[in-house]
């Protein structure tokens, strides 16, 4: 890394830093603190805790917004255990840091769950045309990493392309052995819905394709989330209004949740996220789309920065066919409640008893 590197240089071209964790930065060439929570606490074992606290207090007063935030974060509680005053403090210092880092006024919302609200989602599986606008809207809205090198591009939503199968007369006797043999059962069916590894990377000229149906998946915000059960540091949890969230500062990147999630919904930042300044969405939520660090897991949270303010998630607003619906499950007049009441509804992998609050329906 050359010290005189222009700050406007494409971050994708930068040599990756090998520090264990590095704060999300619009410019990875900027010298960032290279200590992680783990590394720092290990090294700090020799020092007395009180002297550490003193240093932290000094650093918090520093003029360097990024450094002050880093230090304060090392002594920060899990978000769930913070008092309102501590939340406000964390919010102020993050707003200061992101604003200086991204060169625009960044807000970090800390609005909590509202009483009487249980968020729910419904998706009309027959309507989806597989245009992937939801995927890209999600990236725009939620400040996902958008680099071009492996591991630098993160997309929370996957749209699976499913083949349509059929029962065919001429295949009636397929699967039976010739002559004498053990009867194994016939197969008049052309296999459908097989998801090969490549089938969410389809590239036709236009969608929908005649022989395909599409199945978008993302975090299902399970009522009994396996990811929450396995998390060793309890950084991921279900909020009172439904969404399962992650306190990015407490995530140790062990990826247990990624293994536990049956819906492939979680993504890890293996590299420092690539988030160009001009593309950064400055309206953020602490548990939502604020910039992530290297080495933490992230996933869909139903756009908390929007939905806690009453607005639809970005994917709902962008879906050109209106396949996506969002609302309050406790309100009988809401769109999702009407769908549950009136339409044919199913949940993905219902047999796993994760009880998703994401419903697929068709009419």
């Amino acid at each position: 890394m050359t010290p005189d590197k222009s700050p406007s240089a494409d971050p994708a071209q930068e040599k990756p830093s090998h520090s264990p964790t590095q704060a999300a930065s619009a410019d990875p060439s900027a010298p960032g603190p290279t200590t992680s929570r783990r590394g720092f606490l290990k090294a700090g074992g020799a020092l007395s805790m009180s002297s550490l606290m003193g240093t932290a207090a000094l650093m918090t007063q520093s003029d360097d917004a990024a450094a002050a935030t880093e230090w304060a974060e090392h002594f920060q509680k899990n978000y769930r255990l913070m008092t309102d005053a501590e939340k406000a403090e964390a919010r102020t210092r993050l707003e200061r840091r992101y604003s200086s880092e991204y060169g625009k006024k960044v807000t970090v919302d800390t609005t909590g769950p509202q009483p009487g609200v249980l968020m729910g989602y419904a998706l009309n599986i027959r309507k989806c045309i597989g245009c992937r606008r939801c995927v890209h809207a999600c990236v725009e809205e939620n400040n996902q990493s958008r680099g071009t090198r492996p591991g630098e591009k993160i997309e929370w939503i996957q749209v699976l392309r499913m083949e349509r199968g059929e029962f065919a007369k001429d295949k009636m006797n397929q699967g039976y052995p010739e002559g004498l043999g053990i009867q194994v059962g016939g197969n008049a069916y052309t296999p459908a819905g097989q998801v090969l590894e490549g089938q969410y990377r389809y590239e036709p000229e236009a969608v929908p394709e005649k022989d395909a149906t599409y199945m978008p998946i993302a975090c299902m915000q399970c009522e009994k989330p396996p990811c929450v059960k396995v998390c060793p540091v309890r950084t991921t949890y279900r909020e009172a209004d439904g969404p399962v969230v992650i306190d990015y500062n407490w995530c140790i990147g062990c990826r247990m949740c990624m293994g536990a999630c049956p819906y492939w919904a979680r993504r890890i930042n293996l590299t420092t996220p690539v988030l160009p300044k001009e593309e950064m969405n400055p309206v953020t939520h602490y548990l939502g789309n604020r910039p992530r660090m290297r080495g933490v897991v992230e996933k869909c949270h139903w756009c908390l920065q929007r939905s806690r303010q009453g607005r639809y998630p970005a994917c709902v607003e962008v879906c050109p066919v209106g396949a996506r619906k969002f609302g309050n499950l406790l309100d009988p007049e809401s769109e999702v409640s009407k769908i549950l009441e009136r339409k044919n509804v199913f949940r993905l992998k219902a047999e796993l008893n994760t009880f998703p609050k994401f419903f697929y329906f068709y009419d």
Partner: protein
Amino acid sequence: MNKLAFHTMILAFCCGMMAPALAQEQKAAAAAPAPAPAAETVCFESRKGASEVTKRDLQPGWPNVKCSPKTGAVLWWGDPFDGTVPMGKMPLLDKIPEGHAVIKPRTEKLALMPMCGVSCHNGIGPKFSPPTLPKGRKPAPVPTMEAMVPDLKDLQHGRGRIWCLDCHHTTKRNMLVDHFGDPVSFDQPQLLCGKCHGDKLRDWRDGIHGKRIGEWASTGKKRWFTCTECHNPHNVQDGARNRGFVQIAPEAPPQLPRGMKDAKYERVHGIAH
């Protein structure tokens, strides 16, 4: 007056009732050859030509929309109520709290529409007795309705069971028509479409069918997309595919894993178990 201007005038005056289609085509044609980021970015919301939005800054650095560099579709809304008007009370829609449903008016986009009902389709035939043409003018070809709507003789909507005047008002061609023969605005197409598609109208009213943006609470302020913002009424089945939404180009696929050249790789090489 030069020849071109004259032709344009003829064309404008004989626009006929299919002006919406004409206006759309002109728009699409104008948008197609200029993918380069011009001073003004216009991107489409649901389908090309029907609902478009012009990109501008709500505040410095805070755009009203973000458009896809690949397909030109809206990818993100900063302000879901951009360019909307209150939908107003409608029969069957009395449950909406006042002012809480807004729509994007469509009529103002249809540049030639105000003339349809006064120039050619006013229900009174042209009075030529004896038939004359202005002095010194040669007869000029005018586009027929068929030229503007190629499927006119074989309108696929309703599989050939309906014709123009099932939807368009007989004497007010800049209006649609309801079951009682009363005119319906082009901004309220659901009152027309619901004549046949009652089940869809019910689902649309309850937020199950169709698209809404804005606030999710059932009493929240929402922008409702009306029928014609997503469906092209003249080609609602889109040929043999028999689906209500025309094909569009998809956004870019996710990143391929290292070593895979294209999306077909897995099919060619099989999957390792």
